[in-house]
């Protein structure tokens, strides 16, 4: 079948249009039949992939005794006990400080990322500097350096200047962690602003601020929002840096979760409740950015 190149499969003009219509009609029928099978297969696989998530949610509403049975008690009574437990009703250990730390670190680092990345992306797309592609690849190469290759100096620096267990230090590190991705994403979104619109604005004598507000922002806004959401997710999820650089004061939610790694006894419903609570912001942010998720995650390479 090596002859199947685009030029060889083109419809030859001498074919009658009736023939083409008939064959089209047939080829449209086949996919419909396939689609039912594909639909069923896709749904089964989708449910299989979603099972751990759905099971996590269901278990979080079960009592501890119902959560730890074999075979599983799917239809057990629903209760909010696990959530009350997680929020420290009996133990008195509240997850709120860690959740607030996570929110602070994620939101503020995302704001910082945007403040630095938007002008940089502007200088890489709308009014590009010379050799702007080289600059882009420098940004990308910093992202390829594993965290473990820089974590010890960061730890030693923080220890020396007394920035250990300080949320601001973590915010700066998260900013640097997300900045290269944000520049790449943002550049791809800013590059979507039509050149003609920019030229028209220039001819009309619009100044920079007006151009930014009236021409660039409306086109790039959904992309900027998606970039912000993806940066938020990456910061919220981060564990290694938070574990090394923070402690009791600035510990984030993932660090709090590691307290469950080697727990014993009846705590399954509580773990599930904790996982649900901590994943909720990411699930919301991810579904909000769903349309632009691919473009963002592929650094703008895929539309």
């Amino acid at each position, binding site marked *: *079948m090596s002859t*199947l190149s*685009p030029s060889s*499969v083109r*419809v030859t003009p001498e074919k009658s249009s009736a023939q083409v219509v008939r064959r089209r009609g047939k080829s449209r029928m086949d996919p419909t039949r396939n689609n039912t099978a*594909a*639909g069923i297969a*896709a*749904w089964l696989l989708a449910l299989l*992939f979603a099972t*751990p*998530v759905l*099971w*996590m949610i269901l278990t979080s509403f079960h009592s501890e005794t119902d959560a730890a*049975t*074999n075979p599983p008690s799917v239809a057990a009574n629903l209760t909010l006990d696990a959530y009350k437990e997680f929020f420290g009703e009996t133990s008195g250990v509240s997850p709120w400080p860690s959740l607030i730390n996570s929110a602070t670190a994620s939101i503020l680092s995302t704001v910082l990322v945007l403040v630095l*990345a938007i*002008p940089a992306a*502007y*200088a890489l797309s709308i009014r590009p*500097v*010379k050799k702007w*592609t080289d600059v882009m*690849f420098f*940004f*990308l*190469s910093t992202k*390829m*350096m*594993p965290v*473990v*290759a*820089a*974590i*010890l*100096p960061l730890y030693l620096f923080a220890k020396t200047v007394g920035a250990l267990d300080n949320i601001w230090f973590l915010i700066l590190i998260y*900013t640097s962690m997300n900045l290269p991705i944000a520049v790449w994403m943002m550049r791809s979104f800013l*590059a979507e602003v039509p050149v003609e619109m920019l030229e028209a604005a220039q001819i009309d004598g619009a100044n920079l601020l007006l151009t930014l507000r009236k021409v660039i922002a409306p086109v790039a806004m959904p992309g900027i929002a998606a970039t912000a959401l993806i940066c938020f*997710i990456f910061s*919220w*999820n981060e*564990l*290694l840096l938070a574990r090394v650089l923070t402690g009791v004061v600035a510990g984030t939610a*993932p660090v709090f*979760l*590691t307290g*469950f790694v080697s727990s014993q006894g009846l705590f*399954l419903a509580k*773990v*599930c409740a904790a*996982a649900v609570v*901590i994943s909720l912001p*990411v*699930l919301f942010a*991810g579904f909000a950015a769903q349309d632009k998720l*691919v473009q963002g995650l*592929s650094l703008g*390479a*895929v*539309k």
Partner: protein
Amino acid sequence: MTTATARISRPGHATAKPSRNKASRERALAWARRGPLLPALIFLIIVTQLPFVVTLIISFLNWNSLSPGTTGFAGFENYVTVLTDPDLRQAIFTTILLTVAVVLASLVIGLGLALLLDKKFIGRGLARTLLIAPFLVVPVAAALIWKHALLNPTYGLINGVLTWVWSLFGSGNAPQLDLLSQAPLMAVIVSLVWQWTPFMMLILLAGLQSRPMDTVEAAQMDGATPWAIFRHLTLPHLRQYLELGGLLGAIYIVQNFDAVFTLTSGGLGTANLPYAIYQTFYYANEYGLASAAGVVVVIGTILVATFALRTVFSLFKKEAAR
């Protein structure tokens, strides 16, 4: 100041002066263009490049913070230890195995799912949303769920379902899995494949949907079998998307810490390099050794990254031509 003089000078004033003014004005313009870029660039160099230079220096030192008297120049001693110490060599091997297994498995499953989602069927949007969900669970939380709620040998869901299915056929002794202690690396791989398949699926689905449909329709009209269309039209088109997904995935999975830390705490041969480095400097306080291992990871990543950059570049070139 230079721009001001340039503005005042009139054509035909002096021959040499305007050209010099023009040059300096161009320079000022170039800097005005660079200006917005500089804060991001400088910030990134300070926070990421400087620490790596320090890591590079420490990697040549004999430095254990618990025995401060012995600190000194070590030459390549740390690197020799990284490559000869059985634990660290095991960590290098585990890292490669983990990355390759997870990337390949999630690419293959992701491709299958993308091909299914590319067809129209009832509730496609909801199925897509359900398939993305694993990627949107906080990694530590996902690893905890796998460890306690799914893989736990006594009351995890997997063994629970096995017991339930066997009991349907009246059997009281269902086979029970204990992946966490019998095949711990497999447990880590399975949980990571579950999390990363949606990522691959999304990239490949975008690739499928950017496929020029007229050639596919023409091939269908000429009676090409679905397999021939997949093999000769779809797969070549998807190649760069497969590469992009694989390489971006590899860059993230090489660095994985959360799953190893949570599921197995690096026990039973599951410690990958990031986990081993964390242990070496955080608990063993072997700063020199940890840094050398870090540099080894960077060298490994550069090898992968060279290919990654080439792929990203080929996609990027088309757009840069704008």
